């Protein structure tokens, strides 16, 4: 019996999965990112600002590339750029439902231009052709252990912002008219959400790449909000989905070193995205079966 269990776990968890330091870092960082994205993302989806959430992961690239030129940590470049971008989006009018995507789009267009310039300068001075690829796709297995405390602090700040703003955020996400009638400073609360979003996206985009940043920010909350209408539950469910998808993706990617065709591993992002979409479709099926 125990032999069967051992061979089963051996089949699921590739050799050395639990003893490999890069895997430990990947699991910890992925876990933090999944939880922070799950919490912040629930509000992002409720407020219809998915585009802003995704755009920040691209805009931050400009900050990351600038940081690379200046020789500072890309996380700080990313965050500074994203906080500035969030401020401009709010100024242009992200709070009007019909102007929301436009405000995001204008800032994204300008941000991408900056990214092009900084990446170009970066690539002419050194030979990092892969910089753009790296920022876009990330690589969770090559993170240094030293990044864990920094990620923890950034994540904690984002979560604290959401915790402080929780009730006015829920109210103003449901109806901004109702919230302002109750004396909630709607614009300030909206800006607070954007700042938490900027932090969450910066830390996830720098560590696991822009694709996974958007996937974890939007996918699990969208699935959770299909299952439950209660904000508190939606946050819990979306964190759970995010964690399962991230850890499942890391595991599958680790195992895939032994898979055809190349035998050098399939990307984590592919697996995580697939799992997130599977959860989203499953949530839709459950909702349909209930009705």
């Amino acid at each position, binding site marked *: 019996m125990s032999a069967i269990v051992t061979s089963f776990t051996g089949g699921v968890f590739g050799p050395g999965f639990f003893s490999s330091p890069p895997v430990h870092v990947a699991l910890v960082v992925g876990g933090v990112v999944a939880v922070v994205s799950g919490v912040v993302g629930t509000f992002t989806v409720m407020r219809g600002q998915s585009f802003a959430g995704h755009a920040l992961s691209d805009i931050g690239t400009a900050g990351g590339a600038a940081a690379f030129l200046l020789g500072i940590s890309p996380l700080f470049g990313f965050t500074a750029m994203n906080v500035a971008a969030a401020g401009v989006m709010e100024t242009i009018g992200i709070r*009007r*439902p*019909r*102007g929301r995507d436009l405000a995001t789009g204008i800032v994204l267009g300008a941000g991408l231009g900056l990214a092009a310039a900084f990446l170009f300068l970066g690539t002419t001075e050194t030979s990092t052709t892969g910089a753009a690829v790296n920022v876009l796709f990330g690589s969770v297995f090559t993170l240094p252990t030293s990044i864990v405390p920094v990620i923890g602090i950034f994540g904690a700040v984002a979560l604290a912002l959401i915790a402080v703003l929780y009730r006015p955020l829920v109210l103003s996400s449901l109806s901004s008219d109702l919230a302002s009638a109750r004396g909630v400073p709607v614009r300030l609360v909206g800006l607070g959400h954007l700042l938490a979003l900027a932090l969450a996206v910066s830390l996830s985009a720098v560590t696991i790449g822009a694709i996974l940043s958007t996937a974890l920010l939007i996918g699990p909350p969208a699935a959770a909000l299909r299952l439950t209408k209660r904000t508190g539950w939606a946050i819990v469910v979306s964190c759970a989905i995010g964690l399962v998808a991230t850890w499942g993706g890391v595991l599958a990617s680790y195992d895939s070193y032994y898979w055809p065709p190349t035998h050098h591993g399939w990307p984590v992002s592919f697996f995580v995205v697939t799992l997130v979409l599977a959860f989203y479709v499953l949530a839709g099926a459950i909702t349909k079966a209930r*009705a």
Partner: protein
Amino acid sequence: MAVPRAGSTLSQAGTDAGRAEVLTVRGLSVSLGGREVLHQVSFSMAPGEVTGLIGSNGAGKTTLLRAILGLVTPTSGEVLIAGRPRSRRNPLVGYVPQRLTLDPDIPLRARDLVGLGLDGHRFGAPWPSAARRASIDQALAGVDATHLAGARVGKLSGGEQQRIMIAQALISRPRLLLLDEPLANLDIRNEGEVVALLARIAATEHVAVLISAHDMNPLLGFMDRVVYIAAGRATSGTAEEVVQTETLSALYGHRVDVVHVNGRVLVVAGREDSHAHCDGGP
């Protein structure tokens, strides 16, 4: 402004037989998501008549309008437009939705929106022509909105947008005009002007006008007939026939009182212990 007309001067006192009917709704039932929203609704409309479709929010007014427009499929019953089963893209029916959600910066003038009413379903971009221009000007003049022709639609007030949308619906010369809650979001002055405008249009253009509203009071004196709808069931007739204690009690299935106060009509729940619910609707 049109002179308010008394309840039943144009409708031959509510006798359905022998009128030329623009709209005939017969035994219409609609289910949405397994729930019956409309049950056996029947009524009819003749040219030049103003009919009020009265009921509280959720009573089934919008569903009834959507069924007439062919946007929901009834489970039973039929809708006839000028005696024929309705088809999609029916030029005989004009429609004014409840509210536009427009970006204030949208590059579209009032006259462009009215033009879409003329040929918005056709392929290609509109070619400017004297005839097109003239008919847009005429439609705008018909709703007293000539001065708004060049204004950006998104910047107009709710009442102004309402007028433009009425012009948009009338420009294709429909025989039946449906308006979904045109008086919601308007102040009292604009309310009166829009109702008078609709009554004038019905009389001069010989159009049958169906106005849905949760409060019948702004329409009193302008309506030829009432279709009163509660919990998916409807009763119709002249205002005098329908808005009275016996008829509405039968419709609601429990006692309601119709009270007249200073020329206003209030429909009040009749239970002695209940808190009187006093608006124009149920």
